[in-house]
C-alpha cells in the first residue's frame, strides 16, 4: 500500500473551489514534484497534507488523505503526531525567535527530549545533515534571525528534520534563495530521498526536471496529469500539460 494516498480531495474557500476532486498516490521515498502556474492549488494541496489548512478561516475540505491507511482529514485525527510525521519547509525561511540551537532543539524538546547531551547530539546531527554545521558551530547560541536567508532555510530544514518526520513537504523552498544556497538545498534533497518521501511544490520546471522522480501537474485547481518524471516531461498526454511544458501557459 502506498504511504500517502489522496482520494477526492476538494478544498473550497468561501464557496470558491481551490482544489477539486484530486485523487492520486504519492510514491514512497521519491521526490514528487508538484508543478503548475501560480494559483493552481499547489500550496493548498500541501497544506492539506499536514492540516495547516485548518489555520485558514473559511476553508472547507472534503475527501480523504490516507497516510498508512488512516484518513488524516478526519476530525478526530491526531494533528500533532501528523505534523511531526510531515516535515514542512516553507517558501520563505522562517526562523523562530530564538537561537540557532533552540530552533533545531525546539521540536525534539516539545516531543519530550530533555536530556542536554541528547539535544546537543540532535542539533549537531541535523545541522550537519542540512550542511549548516560548519558555518554555525561557533555561534550556536546566536539569534537565528542573524543568519543569511540561505542559511536560515537550511536551519529550517534542520529544524524540520530534527523531529524525525517521514515525509518532507516543501513549498517552493528555493524561491527566496540565491543560486548557491538553492543548490545546497537541492543537493540535500537528492540525499534525503533515501530516507524520506519528499513532496516538492515548485514553479520552476527546470528544478522539477533536475530533482523529480514523479511529477504532478495542477491547473486551475484540477489535477491534470501525473506520472513518472521521464514520461510526463517527454510524453505528456494532456494538451494543458503540453502547453505548460512548452511555456504557453504559466
Amino acid at each position, binding site marked *: 500500500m502506498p504511504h500517502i494516498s489522496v482520494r477526492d480531495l476538494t478544498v473550497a474557500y468561501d464557496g470558491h473551489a481551490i482544489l477539486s476532486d484530486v485523487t492520486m498516490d504519492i510514491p514512497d521515498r521519491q521526490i514528487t514534484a508538484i508543478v503548475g502556474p501560480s494559483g493552481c492549488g499547489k500550496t493548498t494541496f500541501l497544506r492539506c497534507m499536514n492540516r495547516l489548512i485548518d*489555520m485558514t478561516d473559511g476553508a472547507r475540505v472534503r475527501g480523504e488523505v490516507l497516510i498508512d491507511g488512516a484518513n488524516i482529514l478526519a476530525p478526530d485525527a491526531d494533528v500533532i503526531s501528523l*505534523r*511531526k510525521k510531515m516535515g*514542512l519547509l*516553507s517558501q520563505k525561511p522562517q526562523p523562530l*525567535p530564538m537561537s540557532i540551537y533552540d530552533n533545531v532543539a*525546539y521540536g525534539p524538546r516539545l516531543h519530550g527530549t530533555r536530556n542536554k547531551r541528547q539535544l546537543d547530539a540532535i542539533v549537531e546531527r541535523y545541522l550537519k545533515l542540512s550542511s549548516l554545521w560548519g558555518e554555525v558551530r561557533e555561534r550556536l547560541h546566536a539569534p537565528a534571525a542573524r543568519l543569511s536567508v540561505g542559511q536560515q532555510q537550511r536551519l529550517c530544514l534542520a*529544524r524540520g528534520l530534527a*523531529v524525525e518526520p517521514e515525509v518532507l513537504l516543501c513549498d517552493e523552498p528555493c524561491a527566496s534563495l540565491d543560486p548557491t544556497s538553492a543548490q545546497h538545498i537541492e543537493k540535500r534533497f537528492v540525499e534525503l530521498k533515501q530516507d524520506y518521501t519528499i513532496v516538492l511544490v515548485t514553479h520552476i520546471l527546470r528544478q522539477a526536471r533536475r530533482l523529480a522522480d514523479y511529477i504532478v501537474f495542477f491547473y486551475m485547481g484540477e489535477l491534470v496529469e501525473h506520472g513518472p518524471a521521464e514520461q510526463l516531461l517527454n510524453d505528456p498526454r494532456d494538451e494543458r500539460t503540453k502547453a505548460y511544458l512548452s511555456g504557453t501557459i504559466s
Partner: protein
Amino acid sequence: MRLRLLTERLTSLWFLCLSVVVMLLTAIVAGALVHRSLPILRRHPLGALLGGSGWHPMQDQFGFLPFIVGTVWVTVLAMAMAVPVCLLSAIYLAEYARSATRAVVRPLLDVLAGIPSVVYGLFGVLLLVPLVSDHIAPWAAKHLSFLPGATPREGYATGYCLLTGAIVLAMMVAPLIISIADEVLRSVPVAMREASLAVGATRWETVKHVSARFAAPGLVAAVVLGFSRAFGETMAVLMVVGNVPMAPRSVFDPAYPLPALIANNYGEMMSIPLYDSALLLAALILMVTVLAFNLLAQGVLVIAKRRAAQ
C-alpha cells in the same frame, strides 16, 4: 503661477505653526504647573512634601504621602487584576478565536473603551460597593484573617475602598490592554506561527514559545500604557474609593488618590495660603509620572519594531 507658489509656501508655514502650537501645549501645561507649584516648593522642601503624611492645609501641613500611596496601591491592585485576564483574553482573540468571533468582540472592546468613566463610577457605586461591603469584606474577615492587608479594619467596611476602586479601574483599562495586546499578537508573522505548528507544537506551545516571545516588547508596552491610563484616571475611582487622606493598610481601607485630591478640592480652597500651589504640585507629580510611563512604553515599542524588522 506665482500665486500658486505663494499659496504653497504659506500653507506649509501655516501647518508648521499649528503643529508647533500643539507640541507647545505640553510644554505650556508643564511650565504652568511648575510655575504655580513653586510657592509651596519654596516654603517646604520637596522631600518633606512627598514623604509627609499629614494633610492639614489650614495648619500649613501638606504631606502627599497618603495620596501617593493611595494612587500607587489602587493602580497596582487594578493592574494585578487586569493584566493576567487581559493578556489571556488577547491571546484567545489573536490565536484561537475564529474571525467571526473577532468580528463581534473587537467592536465590543471599542464600545467598552468609549464608555465615559463616570458611568463606570456609577456602576461601581450601585453594584460593586454593596457587593464589597456585604459579601466580599465579610468573607475576607472570616477566611483571610491571616493576611493583614486583606481583612477590613474595624469601622471601615463601607465598600468605598481601595478594592472597589481597583476593580472599577481594572474594568476600565481592560479593553485598552486587550485591544493593544491583540494587535501586537496579530503582528506576529503567520508563517512564524505555522513554522512552530508544523513541527508538531500545539497552539498553546506556539503561543508560549513563539508568539508571546516575539511579541513580548509590544505586550509590555500594552501593559505600561494601561498602567499610565490607570494612574491618571480620576472620576470613576474618585466615586468609589472613599477619599480619606490616610495611607491605606488593607484593601478594604479607603484611599485618596492624587487625581481625586485635585478634582475634589480645586476651586474650594477657601483662600488658604499655598493650598492652590499644593494641588498644582500634585498635578505636576501626576503629569511627570504619566509622561515617564508613556516614554517608557514608546521606548519599548521602538525596540519591538526594530526586532520585528529584523
